[in-house]
């Protein structure tokens, strides 16, 4: 067998251009479905892993796909907002601890995720640098965001205005970067995390300004004053940055129970509690829906991959045609090599040697093609995962 391998290697080496073309053809035929299916499988696994790691998602009534994509991957908008009162009501059931999320704003185009410290413990997100959130106006960056924006603990990050033309709308707030999360290869890498209260600050439900009720208040900022109330006018400057000096001036207006939340991650105490909680909200007049994310993502992937079958069929046809062409090339090559094979026979080669020789050559080509295809696929998967 060693001699056959030697002869096969010598032949392939001599006909290097033809060998390279055959390897290229075979490798491409193998690479395309390998790379695509590998990417799809990895993406699917990544999506399902994220969904599987989240027991439940709660949100307003409407599209369950929108809700799950929003809560798990911070994409898109929810069909309907909830309130903090809904968070408390869920907590009062005793079946789960709720983790509220408010994902509405962005900072340098990265989603701004308003939540509580419970989120970091639930997702097991360690810090690579710096400290956790401490107070209003702080933020913690996902690993990719920090790398892309070249920011770290101690830096400042400005939130994006929702509408640059709406001067009376939410205004940008300068956030203090407290920490940077370690890479986790999840959507958390591409998000900026703030305390839930900070998103309400950005929305305008809270603000900080100098005291207007005191006797030393600048009269230019007072619209009206009675014995029990002072009305400030638009000249009153509101702080766009939370500092140690002005922190105490920040306050909320309105009932905290009415403050908005876009989704809730209920963390049930156990399986039974999860079932009971879901049952509690499956009533006709419920305004909150509770979903099992894995089921929703599987359903979504099923819809998407129904289309993938057409691509698979197309790839199979193309692969079959390519294989047919390659077979034709091999057969023609054998015809061209008939004198060589005849020589070996006339010299008295062992029975089956010519067959083994051709088989070893083809196997070698196939193996090299497979290695090339697999290597190219691995590189593709690695590059895509980086991107």
């Amino acid at each position: 067998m060693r001699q056959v391998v030697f002869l096969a290697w010598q032949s392939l080496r001599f006909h290097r251009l033809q060998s390279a073309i055959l390897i290229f053809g075979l490798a491409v035929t193998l690479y395309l479905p390998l790379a695509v299916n590998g990417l799809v499988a990895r993406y699917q696994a990544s999506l399902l892993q994220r969904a599987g790691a989240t027991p439940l998602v709660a949100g307003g009534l409407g599209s369950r796909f929108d809700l799950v994509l929003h809560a798990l991957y911070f994409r898109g908008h929810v069909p309907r907002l909830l309130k903090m009162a809904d968070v408390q009501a869920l907590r009062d059931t005793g079946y789960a601890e709720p983790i509220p999320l408010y994902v509405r704003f962005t900072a340098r185009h990265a989603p701004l995720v308003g939540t509580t410290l419970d989120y970091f413990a639930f997702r097991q997100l360690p810090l690579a640098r710096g400290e956790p959130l401490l107070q209003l106006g702080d933020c913690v960056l996902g690993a990719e965001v920090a790398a892309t924006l070249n920011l770290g603990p101690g830096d400042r990050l400005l939130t994006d205005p929702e509408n640059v033309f709406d001067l009376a709308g939410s205004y940008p707030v300068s956030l203090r970067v407290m920490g940077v999360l370690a890479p986790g290869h999840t959507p958390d890498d591409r998000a900026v995390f703030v305390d839930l209260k900070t998103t309400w600050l950005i929305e305008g439900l809270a603000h900080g300004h100098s005291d207007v009720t005191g006797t030393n208040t600048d009269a230019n900022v007072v619209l009206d004053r009675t014995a029990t109330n002072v009305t400030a006018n638009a000249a009153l400057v509101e702080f766009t940055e939370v500092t140690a000096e002005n922190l105490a001036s920040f306050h909320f207006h309105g009932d905290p129970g009415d403050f908005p939340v876009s989704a809730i991650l209920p963390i049930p105490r156990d399986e039974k509690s999860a079932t009971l909680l879901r049952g509690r909200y499956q009533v006709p007049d419920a305004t909150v829906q509770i979903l099992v994310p894995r089921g929703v993502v599987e359903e979504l992937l099923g819809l998407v991959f129904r289309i993938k079958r057409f691509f698979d069929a197309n790839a199979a046809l193309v692969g079959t045609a390519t294989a047919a062409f390659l077979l034709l090339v091999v057969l023609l090559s054998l015809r061209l090599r008939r004198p060589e094979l005849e020589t070996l026979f006339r010299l008295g080669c062992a029975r089956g040697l010519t067959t083994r020789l051709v088989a070893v050559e083809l196997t070698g080509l196939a193996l090299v093609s497979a290695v090339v295809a697999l290597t190219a696929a691995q590189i593709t998967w690695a590059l895509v995962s980086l991107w």
Partner: protein
Amino acid sequence: MMIEVEKLVFRYPHSTFTLRVPELSVAEGEKVALAGPSGSGKTTLLHLLAGILLPDEGRIVVGGVQPPRLGDGARRAFRIGQLGLVFQDFQLLEYLDVFENILLPYRIHPALTLTAAVRERARQLARETGIDHRLSHRPGRLSQGEKQRTALCRALLPQPLCLLADEPTGSLDPAAKTRVLEILFEQCTRARATLLMVTHDTGLLGRFDRAIHLAEVSR
């Protein structure tokens, strides 16, 4: 006798040609030329003697063995181990260098084991035939004479009992023809191998021990 043929009859399928050799013999160590007009069956006879083709009738004995009576595998082993074949068109493998072409019989049959002694013998043959400076070159870079000398070394390396050469000088120029023939005769003498060589060149017949005219033999 090295070669004995009796009442040999061979017909190609789908052809009207019939080779008939009632009787033919070649003694050990003899150098015999096999002559005849084109289409008389000279090459066919060589192939029958080598066991490449099987006769329809008759008896063939080469080196005491009747190749037609052997199984395919044994026939191949006999051919590669006991016979040396030299072809008019050299039939070297273009993807092997001269050295590997010479060693080829030892790579294509387990009956022959490639050892360091075999490699050294190959180098010696190359020196004796004047192609030792071409050992790392592929056939594409050789002259016709050098190619034929390579083929000759390949045929002689297994130390065959009998060398069957099919117009080995047919493609060579006169100078190369002379050189190859001298080497052929010299090596056969040195190896004490029997030589049966097909040739069209009547001018060479005098150099052989005798000549067999196939047209006269085949009736």
